[in-house]
C-alpha cells in the first residue's frame, strides 16, 4: 500500500493518472446475529473483503460482478452511505472515513450517486423540482427562483422538458425517471459519480439513450464515474478500465481492451464466455461454471473462486488454490489479477475445457 496522497491540483479535462479516489483495503462485514436472544454475534457476511483501488480523474472505472459479490455495497461504502468495517477511502487525498459531519457534508457535494431502480429512488410525494433541487437547498441555495432556474438548466442538460419541473415521478417513464436521477446527481456539480446499475432496469432502446447521455455529461463536465454493472457488454462500452469482483474481492483489474482481449483470471474468462452474443451465426460452446456463487458468510478457503474454477480442475487441482489466497499480481500492461496461475489463463485453454463439459451436469 502506498501512502495517502496529499490533495494535489489536478489538470482539468481528459483522463489523468492522478487518482481522484483511492480505496485502501476497504472492508465491510455485516454482522450476523443469532443465538437464543438473537443478539450474540455468530458470524459475518463478508460483503467487501479488502478492496484497494484507484479511480483516476476523468475516467470511467467499470466494476462488474454477479449479484451478491459486494459491488453495490462497495459503492455505498465509498460514499459513506454505510460505515466501513475497516480501511480508508481518500477523496482527492482526504480520508473520508475520518472526516467529521461538517467536513463530510462538503465532500458529499463532490461525490454523488445514480441508483439502479428509478422507481424506488425517487420520492413519489416530491415534484421533480423538489427532488432535483433538494441538494441545492441542503447546500445553501435558499432562494426559490434561483434554485428553480438551476433545476430547469439541469433538466435541459439531461434531455427533459423544462416544463416538467412541477410534475411527480409517476408521470414519467423509466428512462425519464433515470434522467431525473441523473439530474439530481449533477445538481451540486460533483466530480465523481457512482453509477450503480443505472441502465439495468431499462428497456434496450432506452438503455442506449441513457448510456449516451452519461458519456455526453462526462465530456461536458469532466466527470469521473464508478460504473457498477453486471452486463459486461455495457461495461465494455462505457469504461476505460474495468475491475472484476468476486465474493467481496477484486480478482482482476485492467484497461478495458486488455481485459476483454486477454482476460487473466479464470472467472473473467467464464463471465465473458457466458454472455449470449446477439449474433446467431456465432453460437458457441460456452464455458459453463459449475455451481453457484458460495455464500459470502462462509467463503471458501484459499482462492475464493477455487470451488468453481475450470482452470484448477484442468491443472489437476493444485493444492495452493484451496490453501493460499492469491494476492493481486501485476501482470504488466496495467493488468493485474488475483490468480496463482494467471499466466496459464488463455482463451485456448478455456475452449478446451468448454468442449469437454457435459451440458446437464453443470450444476454440481
Amino acid at each position, binding site marked *: 500500500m502506498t501512502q495517502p496522497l496529499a490533495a494535489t491540483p489536478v489538470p482539468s479535462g481528459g483522463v489523468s493518472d492522478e487518482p481522484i479516489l483511492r480505496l485502501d483495503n476497504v472492508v465491510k462485514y455485516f454482522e450476523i446475529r443469532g443465538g437464543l436472544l438473537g443478539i450474540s454475534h455468530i458470524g459475518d457476511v463478508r460483503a467487501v473483503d479488502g478492496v484497494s483501488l484507484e479511480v483516476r480523474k476523468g475516467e470511467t472505472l467499470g466494476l462488474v460482478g*454477479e*449479484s451478491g459479490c459486494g459491488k453495490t455495497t462497495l459503492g455505498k461504502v465509498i460514499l459513506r452511505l454505510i460505515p466501513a468495517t475497516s480501511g480508508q477511502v481518500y477523496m482527492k487525498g482526504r480520508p473520508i472515513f475520518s472526516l467529521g459531519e461538517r467536513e463530510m457534508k462538503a465532500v458529499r457535494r463532490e461525490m454523488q450517486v445514480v441508483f439502479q431502480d428509478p422507481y424506488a429512488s425517487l420520492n413519489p410525494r416530491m415534484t421533480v423540482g423538489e427532488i432535483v433541487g433538494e441538494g441545492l437547498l441542503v447546500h445553501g441555495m435558499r432562494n426559490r427562483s434561483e434554485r428553480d432556474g438551476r433545476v430547469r438548466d439541469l433538466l435541459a442538460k439531461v434531455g427533459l422538458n423544462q416544463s416538467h419541473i412541477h410534475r411527480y415521478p409517476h408521470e414519467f*417513464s423509466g*428512462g*425519464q425517471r433515470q434522467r431525473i436521477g441523473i439530474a439530481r446527481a449533477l445538481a451540486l456539480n460533483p466530480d465523481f459519480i457512482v453509477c450503480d446499475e443505472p441502465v439495468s432496469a431499462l*428497456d*434496450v*432502446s*432506452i*438503455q*442506449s*439513450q441513457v*448510456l*449516451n447521455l452519461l*458519456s455526453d455529461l462526462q465530456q461536458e463536465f469532466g466527470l469521473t464515474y464508478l460504473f457498477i454493472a*453486471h*452486463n*459486461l*457488454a*455495457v461495461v*465494455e*462500452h*462505457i469504461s476505460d478500465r474495468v475491475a472484476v469482483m468476486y465474493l467481496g474481492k477484486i480478482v482482476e483489474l485492467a484497461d*478495458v*481492451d486488455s481485459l*476483454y482481449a486477454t482476460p487473466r483470471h479464470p472467472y473473467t474468462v*467464464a*463471465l*465473458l*464466455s*457466458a*454472455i*449470449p*452474443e*446477439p*449474433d*446467431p*451465426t*456465432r*453460437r458457441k460452446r*460456452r464455458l*459453463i*461454471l459449475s455451481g*453457484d*456463487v458460495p455464500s459470502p458468510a462462509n467463503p471458501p478457503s484459499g482462492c475464493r473462486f477455487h470451488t468453481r474454477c475450470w482452470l484448477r480442475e484442468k491443472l489437476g487441482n493444485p493444492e495452493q488454490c484451496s490453501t493460499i489466497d492469491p494476492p493481486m499480481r501485476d501482470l504488466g500492461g496495467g493488468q493485474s489479477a488475483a490468480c496463482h496461475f494467471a499466466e496459464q489463463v488463455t482463451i485456448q485453454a478455456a475452449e478446451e475445457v468448454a468442449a469437454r463439459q457435459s*451440458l*446437464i*451436469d*453443470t*450444476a*454440481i
Partner: protein
Amino acid sequence: MTDRVKVKEIRTGVSETQDDLIEVKDLRTYFPTQDGVVKAVDGVSFEIEAGKTLGIVGESGCGKSITALSIMKLIEKPGRIVGGSIKLDGFEIVNATDDEMRQIRGNEISMIFQEPMTSLNPVYNCGDQIAEAVSLHDDMGRREAHNKAVEMIRDVGIPDPKHRAKQYPHELSGGMRQRVMIAMALSTDPALLIADEPTTALDVTIQAQILELMKALREKNKMAIMLITHDLGVIAEMADEVVVMYAGKVVERSDVNTIFAQPHHPYTHGLLASIPRLGERHKRLAVIKGVVPNPLNLPKGCLFKRRCPYAMPVCDTAPPFQQLGPNHSSLCWLTADQKPPAIGANASGVIAEETAAAMSPSK
C-alpha cells in the same frame, strides 16, 4: 384419467395434417379500463413447429407476456381474449372449457416464469411441489409421484436430488429455483414449454447454465419452446424463428438468421443497433428516439411512426404485413430494400399500389 383421454381424443380427432404444434391467428386480448380499452395484444399471429423454438422479443409493455398468458388462458379479468384463434394440434383453445384447459395446462403446455421465487409455494418443499404437479396430471400414487419428482430434480442437473427435494424454495439459490421450476414444468412431458424471461433475474454465469440446460432438454424431450425475452443475445442463442412485437402487434417475423442479418422493420433495426456488443467499443450507441406510445393513446396508422427515422405521410395509414421472403414478413410501408414506396405513374408492385390507395384523396 378419463378427462385426459377425452382431451387427447378431441385433439387427435380435429388434428389436421400439419407440422405446426401451435397456431395462433389474429389473437386479440383487450383490457377495458376506466380510461378506455387497452389493446395489449392486437392481431398477433404465429406458428410453432414441434421441436422448434420461437423467440418473442419486445420491450416491456409490448404484449409478449399477455400473448403467453392468452395461450394458457390465464388472462385475469377484466381482460379477455376478444378475438382470434389459438390452435394446439388443431384443438381450439380460445373456446375450451375450464375443465379442458386444466387438462391442457401442464399436460400439453407448461410455463416457466421470470421470478421463480414468486412462482414457487414457500410453504411446501420442492419435492412435494413437483410431486403435486405430477400426481395431478398422471394419476400416480404419492410415493411414485415423489420418486418421479426426485428423478426430475436430477434431470435438471441439481446435485444430491434426494436432499434437495426436502428443501424449501428459500433455501435454494436463484439458479436452483429456476431449475426446480423447469423440473416442475417438464415433469408432465409437455409438448410446448412457454418460458417467459426465464433467465432475466439470473446472473450471466447462471443464465448460461440454464440456457444450456434448456437446449439439452429441448433435444431430449423434443418439445417446442416459446421463449419470451427482451435480450437479443438470448434470442440469437436459442431461437429458430423470431417474432418482434411492438405495442401489441407483431412488427416483424422471420427465421433467426435473417432477423439479425437483414432486419427490415425500422424498430428491429433500432433494437439491434442500440445494444452494446462485445468487441465494438467507443462507438456511439444508436438510439430509438422517444418512448413507447401510451396504450390508451396510440398513434393513427403505424404505431412506430413517431419514433421512426423513415416516417412519411403514408404511415398515417396502417401499414401492410408485407411478405419479404418465404419466411420473412414486416409490418411496414418501406419496400423490401428499405426505400420509401414509389408513388406515381411508373410505380408498380403491391406496396406501390397499396400506398397509392392509402394516399388517394378519396380515403
